[in-house]
């Protein structure tokens, strides 16, 4: 069985602890990046609060390296764009253009 981790600003993602996920606090993307490299394959998923998301290249790079953990961005109200940007980046990497018309940039 595998564990779940949630990374967010202190006080914002604590509710996930009540669900049984492990909560890690970070205050900037650099800290998140450091945390991400320390996760072992015991974790099936790592959710990162979207407002702390590291650069899309870093996220996609880490996510396409090994099968576990699956890294995903946790939608928060302030910035919905980061996850979209990441998806667009993968799309452009795979087929060369944003053919789903996700917009932006």
């Amino acid at each position, binding site marked *: *069985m*595998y*564990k*779940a981790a949630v990374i967010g600003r202190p*006080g914002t993602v*604590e*509710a*996930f*602890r*009540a*669900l*049984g*996920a492990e909560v890690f606090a970070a205050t900037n993307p650099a800290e998140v990046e450091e945390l991400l490299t320390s996760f072992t394959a015991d974790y*099936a*998923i*790592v*959710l990162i609060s979207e407002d702390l998301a590291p650069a899309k290249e870093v996220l*996609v790079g880490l*996510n*396409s390296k090994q*099968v*576990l953990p*699956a*890294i*995903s961005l*946790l*939608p*928060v*109200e302030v910035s*919905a764009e980061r*996850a*979209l940007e*990441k*998806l667009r980046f*993968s*799309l452009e*990497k*795979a*087929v*060369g253009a944003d*053919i*789903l018309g*996700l917009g932006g940039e």
Partner: protein
Amino acid sequence: MQQTVNATRMQLTTFRRRLKIAERGHKLLKDKQDEMVKTFLQLARESHQLRSRLQQQLAEASRYQQLAALTTGQEVLQHALMLSNNQVEISYRPSSILGVSVPELEVEGSAAKASFPYGFAETSGNLDQSLTRLAEAFPLLVKLAAIEKAVDLLADELERIRRRVNALEHILIPRLQQNVKFIEMKLDEMERSNIVRLMKINEQREKSQQTH
């Protein structure tokens, strides 16, 4: 770039065979690429839709949590949530999409069901509401993470396949075709010169026979 090629029949057969294999490999890779793009786009679309749905659900959970914090104060809220002993368990099954290993993840049993780790006397009902919403959203978050993982893994593989297809299409196959053509022309040329030589010899022979 023209390689130095030995214009022999043996080399021609080798190059023809290599060309045939390269063309077959190119076709197979191209088919794989097409199919993978189809799956990739399907997954990308699915992840996009699921994310917009989750965004609403999580916004609702967060609104309830803010209300709870307003009613009881942030400290009581943090304290209540810190007491949890729950441990969510996620099952992992390796799966494969056209040869790319992707994870299939699922929240096990009742792990994601809202169980309130605090006393109800001190906390607000809004916190219960928030946790219920979050517990409902959690399996979807796991599903989304798995889909996004597959999207990223497929994107990486597609980039690799595209490079391979391009290398075959624009470098290896044209080079082999050029070599085959070069050897064929060279062999034809040799054959023609051989015929001319024979004709010349024949001519000389006939001439010498006439004079004798």
